[in-house]
């Protein structure tokens, strides 16, 4: 019996309920991961630095993110008098909302099947499957830039302005590189839908039975694209070694220098939310999404966590690039490399 797909027109209540459950679960889980990503980062980096990380707030310091959040919530909120108040307030919102919106198109598991009223229904474990899924994410990434531009512009402080300009230039440069690097993936998958891309990665590697011990994940066909994507997205979400905009040692706190209380917390959360999104995209595009030995979403979460660990690990190890080197890397190395990768992929597909 092939399962029915829920639609709004035929089973409105069931559809709405399923949608709301998915939305709320995804949102809450993302929020939780965001909160505990900060904790995990402090713990892991702490251990790597031969110290302990938070231990005294709650058992093993587990309540630390909550204490931080609460404290920031009750802090005084400063809007500098010279600041452009509307843009100043809207900036953290503009950066957080797109970060959360990107999770909409990410598939975190295979279909969930259940029987209701005698009919077998299948609910895809994905909030919605757009057939332009990846473009949606890229569009949201594009919108995320505004948060930083506005924060820099509205604060009317030199550090913020410099940080804002720096990071805007950085984000757009690497958005381009990351955006171009995944074109090769679409050439292989022939779809922009995230779910379609995961489906394209099923089966043995390159369809060869002799390689059946390896899954057909795009990491094997597109290692260069993966490298470019990871580096590009690390730069786009301002993680070390590309954390120049908030480079403490240069620009105090960069674009969020003037931000206090909850608005600052939103910037903080956006950084980690972006990290989750990027990890999820990388897992989906290159590592077969939810495919793996365990039950769907567990595989997916494991892959996401592995990527996040990798980002944290990088942060503990590497120094920071300089601005001109960053631009050099983005424009003169990654952009041409992405184009070359497209050409190579094209030739390979034509010859195959």
């Amino acid at each position, binding site marked *: 019996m092939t399962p029915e797909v829920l639609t709004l027109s035929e089973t409105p209540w069931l559809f709405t309920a399923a949608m709301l459950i998915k939305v709320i679960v995804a949102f809450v889980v993302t929020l939780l991961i965001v909160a505990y990503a900060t904790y995990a980062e*402090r713990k892991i980096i*702490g251990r790597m*630095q*031969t*110290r*302990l*990380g*938070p*231990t*005294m*707030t709650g058992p093993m*310091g587990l*309540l*630390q993110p*909550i*204490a*931080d*959040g*609460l*404290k920031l919530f*009750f*802090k*005084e*909120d*400063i809007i500098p008098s010279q600041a452009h108040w509307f843009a100043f307030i809207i900036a953290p919102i503009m950066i957080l909302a797109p970060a959360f919106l990107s999770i909409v198109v990410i598939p975190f598991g295979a279909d969930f099947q259940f029987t209701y009223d005698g009919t077998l229904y299948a609910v895809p474990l994905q909030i919605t499957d757009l057939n332009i899924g990846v473009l949606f994410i890229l569009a949201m990434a594009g919108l995320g830039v505004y948060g930083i531009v506005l924060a820099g512009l509205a604060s009317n402080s030199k550090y913020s302005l410099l940080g804002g300009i720096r990071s805007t230039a950085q984000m757009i440069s690497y958005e381009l590189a990351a955006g171009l690097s995944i074109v090769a993936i679409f050439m292989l998958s022939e779809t922009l839908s995230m779910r379609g891309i995961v489906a394209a990665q099923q089966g043995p590697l390159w369809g060869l039975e002799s390689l059946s011990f390896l899954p057909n994940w795009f990491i094997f066909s597109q290692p260069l694209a993966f490298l470019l994507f990871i580096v590009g997205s690390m730069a786009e979400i301002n993680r070390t070694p590309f954390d120049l905009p908030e480079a*403490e040692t240069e620009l*105090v*706190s960069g674009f*969020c*220098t*003037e*931000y*206090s*209380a909850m608005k*600052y917390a939103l910037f903080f959360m956006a950084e980690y939310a972006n990290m989750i999104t990027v990890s999820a995209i990388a897992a989906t595009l290159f590592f077969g999404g939810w495919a793996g030995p365990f039950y769907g979403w567990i595989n997916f979460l494991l892959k996401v966590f592995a990527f996040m660990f990798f980002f944290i690990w990088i942060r503990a190890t590497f120094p920071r690039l300089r601005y001109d080197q960053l631009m050099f890397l983005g424009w003169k190395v990654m952009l041409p490399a992405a184009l070359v990768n497209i050409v190579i992929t094209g030739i390979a597909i034509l010859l195959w």
Partner: protein
Amino acid sequence: MGVEQSKTLGSGFITTSLDKLVNWSRASSMWPLTFGLACCAIEMMATGAARFDLDRMGIIFRASPRQADVIIIAGTVTKKMVPVIKTVYEQMPEPKYVIAMGACASSGGIFDTYSTVQGVDEFLPVDVYIPGCPPRPEGLLYGLMKLQDKIRAERNTFGAAIGVGDVIHNEA
């Protein structure tokens, strides 16, 4: 702080629990400003380093005063530096706390000279003094815990947060 009882939210079970919650969050997440002046700054760094690890207490240094809760005056305060410290302190959001770390910051210490301020308390409301020249990292940690005690003993913090009355500081 002579605040009349009527200006608080009262001392019901819920308000005191809320106060406790607020105090707990403030005490568990004191972010000091990265602000080193002299010798004590090095001990402050050492306190943040692996052996003593301030991060255990949820303390991470913030570079911008907008995100800081505590300013640790670590070192000699000179007359040239006073306006800077005042400005930086002013620019921190409420509630904010001051720790005078070391003899120089607390009282001028050995530097009883023309250019040195004889204690930062001449122009900032110091919450905790830590003697020592410089204090051991444990001394600083003890001072920070004293400050936590002080924060925990505050009353009407929730009330003050929602605009009813002021915070009442108790003697810890």
